[in-house]
C-alpha cells in the first residue's frame, strides 16, 4: 500500500491532520486503479450513455434498459483476471458471483450469464490448458448451482496470455420496471450487511488487481460459495417485493471500504459504521482487514428502521446472516468505529472520488514495424488448410465448454449456445439476443479499428437472429496504463468504440476497465470486449439446418484484410498484415437490409462471417446442416482465392434463402445499395470452393464435422 505523489498532495490539501491507519487502508483500496478508474474515468465520459431505452438512476452497478410492457433488462460486465490467473476455479467462480450481485442490486433477477475466456496456447502449453479447464469448471460450478443459465460467450487462445488468463463475465437481468430499486436513504435508516461472513480471503484484492501479477498472492483470491449466493438472490428479491430495500450495493472490489463510501457519496448522506457489528468468519480479524476484505456473497442494504424486523425474518427464512452494521447520517461523512473508538472520519465524497490522473500517451513503436505479408509460401493444399483451421482451438466447436454449463435452466433459452448469438424469451412476448465479442489479434495490429470491429461483430451476431441492437457494454483490458504506449492503445480503442456507438446510436450502458494485465513476457494484446444486447419484437430467426438447393448470398464486401486472421496467425504463424476496418456506412446499410430481409421472412438462415473468414462460415453451415456447398469464389471478390476464403472483413453476412425468394431478396438488397453476390448453393456432401470452373478446395462434410466438433475435446483429454 503506497500513495503516489499527487495523491499525497491531494490528501494534504483536503485533510488537515495525519490519516489514521484505517483511513490509509480504506483510501488505498478505494483509490486503487481497480476501484477509482483513476486513469480511465475522464476518458470514459466520451461514450454515449443515453438513449430512448436507457433508464438512469443513481448508484446502479448495472445498466438498465426499458424493453417495453413495463419490463426492464439489466446488464453488467466484469472481469476477474488476476485471481483467475492464480486460482482459475475460484477466480472464475467469484467473477460470476460478483457480476450477478450487480444485476441483483438494481432489483432485477439475473437470467443469463456470458463469459469471455482467454488463455495461452492450449495445444502446447500445459499451464494454459490447466487454467482453461479449471476456469470453465469454476464458472460451471457457480452458475449451475445458482440456476442462472450460461448461454453464450467466447473462448480464445493466444500466446500473449501465457501464464495468464482473462476471465470476463457478463450477466443479464430481467424484472418489472416498477420493482427497480430507486436508491435513496433517509437520515436514521439502518445499514445492513447481508450474506456471507467476512474473512481474510480477498484482503487487498483490488490493489492486487491494480498491479502486475508478480508472485502468487494467494490471500488476495476470494473463495466462492454459490449456495449462499443463491440464498441471497432469493432473500433479496423477496425483500424487494416486501419493499424493504431503500438502497442496495454489492460488495465487490475494495469490500466495505468501497461499498460504504460509494453508497454514501452517491446518495449524498453520511454513514456511521461499527466494525464490531460485522459478522466474521475468523474472530481475530483486525478492523482494517474487515474494511478491505473482499469476501464474497455479501450485500449492503439500506432499510428504514420499521422494515428491519421484516428483513430479519426473510434472512432467517433463508438462513443467511444479517448484521445491522451502521446508520445513515446527515453529515456526508464516512465514519468508521470500532465500538466506541473512531477509526475513520472523512467526507464520503473525498473517499469515493479518488484523484484522477492524466496519463501520457504515445503511439507504440511496434505499430510502425508490422510486416505486411508472410514471407514464406505454404505448401499445403487449401483443403488441408481448411481442415487445420476447423480443428484450431480458436475456431473448432466449443461444445466441450458450453455442455458443462446449464444453458437451459430458467426455460428462456430460445436460441441455444453454439450459434451466432443466444436468444432469451422475455415475459413481454419479445426476445432478447445477446453476444459478447473480442478480437485481440485485430486489436494488436490496429487498436482503433480492432475495437470497432469487435463492436460491429457483436452487433452482426445479434442481427443474425433478427434483433436490433439497443445497448452495449464494454470491457477494456490492457497492460500497464503508466506506459504511454499502452495508454495510447487504450485511447484508440475507446475513441473507436465511441465513434461507432454514436454513429449507430447504440448507448453504452455499462462497462469496466481492467489495466495491469501483464505477463512475464510483457503486456497482453489490447483486449477490448464488447457485449451487445438486441431486441426482437417477435420470435427470433431460429438457426435451422441448411438444406439442399438453397441459395447462398454473401452480403458485404470482402477486402484484402488478412491481418490478424486465423489464416495468418494459425496457418502461417504470422503476426502482421492489414487488419479489417469497418466502413460505418456499409455497416449500417448491411445491418438494416439484413434485418429487413429477416422481418419479411425471406431468409432461412443468416450467419455471421468472421473468424476464419468465408471458408469457416460456409463450413459451419454445412456441418450443422450435414450438407455440402458449392461456392464460386469469383463471385465473392476480384481478389485472390486466398483472400476471398480467409479474409475476416467486417459487415459481412451469409444469407441462405430458398430459390423462390431469390428475386425479392435481390431487389431489396439492390434497392438499399448493399454490396452482395450470389456465391453458391447447398448440395451434395462436399464443401467445394471453385475459382472459375476449377475446384481449389474439396472437403467431405462428415470429415469437416469430425475435426470441427472433436478437436478441442481431444486437446483437453490429452491432459
Amino acid at each position, binding site marked *: 500500500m503506497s500513495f503516489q505523489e499527487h495523491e499525497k498532495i491531494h490528501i494534504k490539501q483536503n485533510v488537515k491532520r495525519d490519516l489514521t491507519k484505517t483511513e490509509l487502508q480504506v483510501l488505498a483500496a478505494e483509490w486503487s486503479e481497480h476501484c477509482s478508474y483513476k486513469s480511465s474515468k475522464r476518458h470514459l465520459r466520451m461514450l454515449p450513455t443515453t438513449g430512448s431505452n436507457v433508464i438512469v438512476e443513481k448508484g446502479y452497478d448495472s445498466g438498465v434498459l426499458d424493453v417495453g410492457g413495463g419490463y426492464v433488462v439489466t446488464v453488467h460486465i466484469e472481469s476477474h483476471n488476476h485471481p483467475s490467473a492464480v486460482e482459475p476455479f475460484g477466480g472464475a467462480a467469484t467473477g460470476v458471483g460478483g457480476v450477478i450481485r450487480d444485476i441483483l442490486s438494481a432489483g432485477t433477477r439475473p437470467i443469463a450469464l456470458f463469459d469471455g475466456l482467454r488463455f495461452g496456447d492450449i495445444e502446447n502449453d500445459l499451464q494454459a490448458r490447466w487454467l482453461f479447464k479449471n476456469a470453465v469448471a469454476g464458472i*460451471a460450478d457457480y452458475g449451475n448451482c445458482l440456476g442462472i443459465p450460461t448461454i453464450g460467450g467466447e473462448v480464445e487462445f493466444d500466446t500473449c496470455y501465457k501464464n495468464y488468463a482473462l476471465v470476463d463475465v457478463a450477466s443479464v437481468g430481467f424484472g418489472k420496471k416498477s420493482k427497480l430499486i430507486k436508491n435513496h436513504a433517509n437520515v436514521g435508516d439502518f445499514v445492513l450487511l447481508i450474506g456471507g461472513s467476512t474473512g481474510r480471503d480477498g484482503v487487498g484484492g483490488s490493489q492486487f488487481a491494480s498491479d502486475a501479477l508478480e508472485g502468487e498472492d494467494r490471500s488476495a483470491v476470494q473463495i466462492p460459495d454459490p449456495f449462499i449466493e443463491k440464498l441471497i438472490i432469493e432473500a433479496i428479491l423477496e425483500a424487494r417485493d416486501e419493499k424493504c430495500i431503500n438502497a442496495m450495493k454489492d460488495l465487490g472490489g475494495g469490500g466495505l471500504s468501497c461499498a460504504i463510501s460509494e453508497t454514501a457519496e452517491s446518495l449524498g448522506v453520511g454513514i456511521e459504521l461499527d466494525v464490531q457489528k460485522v459478522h466474521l468468519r475468523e474472530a481475530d480479524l483486525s478492523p482494517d482487514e474487515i474494511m478491505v476484505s473482499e469476501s464474497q456473497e455479501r450485500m449492503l442494504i439500506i432499510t428504514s428502521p420499521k422494515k428491519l424486523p421484516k428483513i430479519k425474518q426473510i434472512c432467517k427464512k433463508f438462513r443467511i446472516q444479517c448484521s445491522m452494521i451502521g446508520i445513515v447520517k446527515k453529515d456526508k461523512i464516512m465514519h468508521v468505529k470500532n465500538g466506541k473508538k473512531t477509526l475513520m472520519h472523512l467526507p464520503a465524497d473525498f473517499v469515493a472520488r479518488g484523484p484522477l490522473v492524466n496519463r501520457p500517451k504515445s503511439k507504440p513503436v511496434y505499430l510502425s514495424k508490422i510486416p505486411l505479408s508472410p514471407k514464406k509460401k505454404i505448401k499445403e493444399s487449401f483443403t488441408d488448410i481448411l481442415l487445420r483451421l476447423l480443428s484450431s482451438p480458436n475456431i473448432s466447436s466449443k461444445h466441450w465448454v458450453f455442455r458443462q454449463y446449464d444453458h437451459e435452466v430458467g426455460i428462456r433459452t430460445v436460441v441455444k449456445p453454439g450459434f451466432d448469438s443466444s436468444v432469451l424469451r422475455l415475459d413481454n412476448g419479445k426476445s432478447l439476443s445477446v453476444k459478447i465479442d473480442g478480437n485481440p489479434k485485430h486489436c494488436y495490429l490496429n487498436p482503433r479499428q480492432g475495437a470497432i470491429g469487435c463492436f460491429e461483430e457483436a452487433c452482426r451476431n445479434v442481427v443474425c437472429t433478427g434483433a436490433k441492437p439497443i445497448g452495449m457494454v464494454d470491457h477494456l483490458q490492457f497492460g500497464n496504463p503508466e506506459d504511454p504506449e499502452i495508454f495510447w492503445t487504450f485511447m484508440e480503442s475507446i475513441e473507436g468504440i465511441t465513434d461507432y456507438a454514436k454513429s449507430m446510436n447504440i448507448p453504452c450502458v455499462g462497462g469496466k476497465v481492467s489495466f495491469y494485465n501483464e505477463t512475464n513476457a510483457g503486456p497482453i494484446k489490447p483486449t477490448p470486449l464488447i457485449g451487445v444486447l438486441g431486441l426482437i419484437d417477435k420470435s427470433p430467426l431460429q438457426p435451422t439446418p441448411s438444406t439442399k438447393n438453397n441459395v447462398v448470398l454473401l452480403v458485404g464486401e470482402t477486402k484484402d484484410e488478412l491481418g490478424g486472421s486465423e489464416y495468418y496467425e494459425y496457418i502461417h504463424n504470422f503476426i502482421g498484415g492489414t487488419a479489417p476496418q469497418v466502413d460505418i456506412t456499409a455497416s449500417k446499410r448491411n445491418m438494416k437490409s439484413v434485418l429487413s430481409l429477416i422481418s419479411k421472412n425471406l431468409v432461412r438462415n443468416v450467419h455471421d462471417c468472421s473468424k476464419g473468414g468465408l471458408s469457416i462460415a460456409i463450413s459451419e453451415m454445412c456441418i450443422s446442416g450435414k450438407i455440402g456447398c458449392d461456392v464460386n469464389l469469383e463471385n465473392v471478390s476480384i481478389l485472390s482465392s486466398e483472400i476471398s476464403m480467409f479474409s475476416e472483413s467486417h459487415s459481412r453476412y451469409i444469407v441462405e434463402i430458398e430459390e423462390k425468394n431469390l428475386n425479392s431478396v435481390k431487389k431489396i438488397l439492390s434497392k438499399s445499395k448493399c454490396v452482395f453476390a450470389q456465391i453458391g448453393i447447398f448440395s451434395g456432401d462436399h464443401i467445394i470452393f471453385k475459382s472459375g470452373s476449377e475446384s481449389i478446395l474439396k472437403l467431405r462434410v462428415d470429415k469437416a464435422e469430425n475435426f470441427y466438433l472433436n478437436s478441442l475435446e481431444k486437446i483437453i483429454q490429452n491432459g
Partner: protein
Amino acid sequence: MKVGVIVFPGSNCDRDMYHVLTDVFNLNAEFFWHERNLPKNIDAVVLPGGFSYGDRLRAGVIAANSPIISDVKKLASKGVPILGVCNGFQILVESGLLPGVLLKNESLNFMCEWTNLIVKNNKTPFTNKLKLNQKIPIPIANGEGRYFVDEKTLNKLRKNNQIVFSYENKVNGSVSQIAGVCNRDGNVVGMMPHPERAAEREINQVDHKPSSLIFESLIETMGVKN
C-alpha cells in the same frame, strides 16, 4: 385439485416447473417451502431440480433428511403421484422412496445437452398418455446423473416394471441406460432429464409434444381420481 412444488434452499427449477404446471397446463400449483407441512389432501407433489443445500455432502442427501420428506413419504404410501426431476430424483433416491443411487457422470463433468428418452413403462401417473417405447426429445443437465443399482436390484426393477425411462443412446454411463424409475406401486417417479424444459414449442426445437404428455398424463390421473 392441487399440485405441490417443494422448494428447498438451493432448488432452482422450482419456478420453471411452476410456470409449466400453471401457465402451460392450467393446473393449480402451489410452492411449499421445505419448512411447511404438506396438506393431506394434496393431489400430486413435484420435487423440482436444482442444487438443494448446494449439493453439499452428496447431491440430495440433506434435503432427503428434511422434515417435509416425511410428509412426502406419507403421501407416497397413500398412492399420491410424486415426481422428482433431476435433483428431485436424487432426493427421492436418497430418501429411500426410490431404489438405486445417482453417481458422477462417466465424463466426470456436468452435462447439459439434448437427448432422447424411450418410454419403458406407460402405466405410471406421469406416463399413461405416452406410448410404450415412444421417443421423448428432452435435455439433461446434471453432474451426478449416472443411475446405478446392483445386478440383483436391476433384475427386480425389470421384473416389477420399475424402469420408466431409458436413454436412447449411451449418455452418462447409467446402468442399462436408465434415466428414470418408479417405486413398486408406480406412483413415485424419478427422472434425471427435465420435462419442464421440453414441453413448450418455443424452447424445444425438436418436438415438444412427447414431454407435454408427461404433464397431460398427470392431468389425466388426477382427473380420473376425482
